[in-house]
């Protein structure tokens, strides 16, 4: 035991001696969570649009003003002919053009119907459909204003309640996600590198002939990283609560324990990677190239899993991050406890056991 503690101490020295890595290790999560918490959003805001008004009458001007006044849109310029639309889209500085038909007011008054074309640059389909929806709803509310006094019969009034995130803040969605990415990549990458590093430098040989069992060697290597990752998790949760006003509807201790579990899962994955490769370079490329995009894309961090094609929904199940994100969102936003999250927790435990078992099987005591 004393020997083992000595070994763990050696590992801590290694880490603390490398000031630059340490700085990145702690500075990075803070910088990322702040940056992303404020900057990443898939809501639309202040989108630059243009107006092509061929009728220039009271109604079209009122609608234009109404759109400009909303926080979603800024009218950047007025076009004079349809030819300019293509040019403007190609340059990419405006995302939509509102095209009023000729003699809009006249049609509206005489025939009771006017039409407005909403042209969007749909290279980004998400933004395009959001813009179309928002503009349509602004126009609809204008229409309602015009129709005041006209009685509307048979109204169904839906009362919509947004639960768990009533203000639809996208930061609530992203904080658990960023936390997951950071924990996953830091833990997996750190361990896979630190073990292969010893291999590559030849010092692994020395460790293996020491009286420590190989199990102790591996555990000893991992302990410091569990510690560091826990501090990271704590910092991220703290920033989420204080800076972004993340509610922790559930039990904070449970969240802490689940984070530790997820950290161990990631470390186990890191160990597994290190048993399979020989050089740091390969270890890093696997943990970076192999993990980064799947963790971002298949975990439900940004894109909803339920919308993906069925085969991908199946594949997403093997991404540990998916389960942890479900757990983190459940505890933070829904306030549920283990009673609801036991399945996800068991899956993470199962994955950890699997990774460790596989690493033990692959682990070689002798170097060739």
């Amino acid at each position, binding site marked *: 035991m004393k020997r083992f503690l000595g070994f763990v101490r050696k590992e801590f020295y290694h880490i603390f001696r490398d000031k630059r890595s340490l700085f990145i290790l702690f500075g990075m999560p803070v910088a990322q969570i702040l940056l992303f918490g404020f*900057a990443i959003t898939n809501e639309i805001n202040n989108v630059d649009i243009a107006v092509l008004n061929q009728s220039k009458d009271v109604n079209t001007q009122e609608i234009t003003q109404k759109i400009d006044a909303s926080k979603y849109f800024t009218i950047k310029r007025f076009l004079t002919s349809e030819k300019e639309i293509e040019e403007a889209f190609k340059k990419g500085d405006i995302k939509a053009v509102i095209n009023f038909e000729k003699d809009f007011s006249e049609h509206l008054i005489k025939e009771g119907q006017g039409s407005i074309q909403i042209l969007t640059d749909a290279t980004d389909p998400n933004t395009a459909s959001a813009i179309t929806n928002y503009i349509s709803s602004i126009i609809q509310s204008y229409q309602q204003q015009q129709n005041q006094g006209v009685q509307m019969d*048979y*109204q169904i009034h839906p009362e919509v309640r947004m639960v768990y995130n009533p203000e639809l803040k996208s930061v609530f969605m992203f904080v658990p996600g960023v936390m997951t990415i950071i924990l996953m990549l830091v833990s997996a990458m750190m361990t896979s590198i630190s073990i292969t590093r010893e291999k590559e430098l030849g010092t692994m040989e020395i460790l293996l002939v020491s009286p420590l069992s190989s199990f102790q060697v591996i555990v000893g290597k991992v302990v410091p990283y569990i510690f560091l990752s826990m501090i990271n998790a704590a910092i991220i949760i703290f920033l989420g609560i204080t800076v972004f006003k993340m509610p922790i509807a559930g039990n904070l201790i449970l969240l802490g324990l689940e984070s530790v579990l997820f950290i161990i899962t990631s470390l186990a994955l890191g160990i597994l990677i290190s048993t399979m490769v020989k050089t740091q370079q*390969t270890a890093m490329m696997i943990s970076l*190239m192999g993990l980064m995009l799947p963790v971002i894309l298949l975990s439900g961090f940004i894109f909803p899993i339920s919308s993906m094609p069925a085969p991908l929904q199946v594949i997403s199940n093997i991404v540990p991050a998916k389960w942890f994100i479900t757990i983190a969102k459940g505890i933070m936003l829904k306030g549920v406890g283990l009673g609801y999250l036991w399945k996800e927790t068991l899956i993470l435990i199962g994955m950890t056991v699997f990774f460790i078992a596989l690493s033990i099987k692959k682990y070689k005591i002798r170097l060739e």
Partner: protein
Amino acid sequence: MKVIGYIIQKEFKQIFRNKGMLPIIFVLPLLQLLILSNAATYEVKNILFAYIDEDRSASSRELIEKFNASEYFDVKASYVNYKQASEAMLKGEVSVLLHIPQDFERNLVRYKKTDLSITIDAIDGAAAGVESGYINQIIQGFNKKIRLELLSFSNGNSKPVRIETIPSFWYNTTLDYKTFMVPGILVLLVTMITLFLSGMNIVREKEIGTLEQINVTPIRKGEFIIGKLFPFWVIGMGLLTIGLILAKLIFNTPMLGSIGLLYFYTSFYLLVILGMGLLISNYTDTQQQAMFIAWFFVVIFILMSGLFTPIESMPKWAQWFTELNPIKYFVEVVRMVMLKGAGFTDILPQLIKTLAYAFVLNVLAVWSYKKVS
């Protein structure tokens, strides 16, 4: 010149000798392009839908049928009380709950006004917004139908005005996400591979100690750097080529603009990434540090590139910040050229910024590279 040739030869040999690395460089990224492009969609469909029908009338059944028929909603279950339903929502089995109260139909006929309550799991705020839009559409459609059926009994005294909006989606009329995502993800993968490889390369020689040996040879600084980085430039271009072929063959991504222009831009863009990799190499002592720094920048670059979330929605300071993000320019250029058919003058601003970026980074990198440790 001859020296550079030899260094390049050595580098290529080293890269291709490492059998574990080859699949990571070529297979992994392309596999991800093929698989992950399907995952990146904001489209909201297969919404887990459940209802509580306390009215059990013809109208309520008809309304539920409307949800059932919609392509967006996937009717999962019906519950008898709210408690049961909210339990299911907590478990994540249901994300939209429609609650039809008693007397739904009676109120509609008698008072011409009736209430409904809808509960949406709003953790994903953007999806919740879209879902609420779909729900409104369905209810409005239902409303209209009822109004038409029953209007003959009521006395509409004046005609309401109607403003029709006609949406028109340019460049991607079917709002296909893959068209949007494939070029972006390809660009990302090319960037990641070249940055990671170049960032690790020189520092690896440093760590193993072989850099010392090269430093005592008559090879000059410039020759060494060019010889070191050129192979990764080739790999980056190669990856782009294979990726474009796959995009065309498998995703049938439109390529409206000139592919030559795309290559022209990429050849300069890669200089930015290689310069950045070299700079990282210079300022670190171990591969671990190098990777950490590269990772730090790549995560920020990816998430702030406009690839997954629109840049216009970011706060002003963050938008300024993205000006420093090379991936942003590449994503913009690849989408403009491939999807909109933009020409040289359209991408000129991005090209100029990229060139300036490449120049500054490479000057810094060469200047900070010291032959003496």
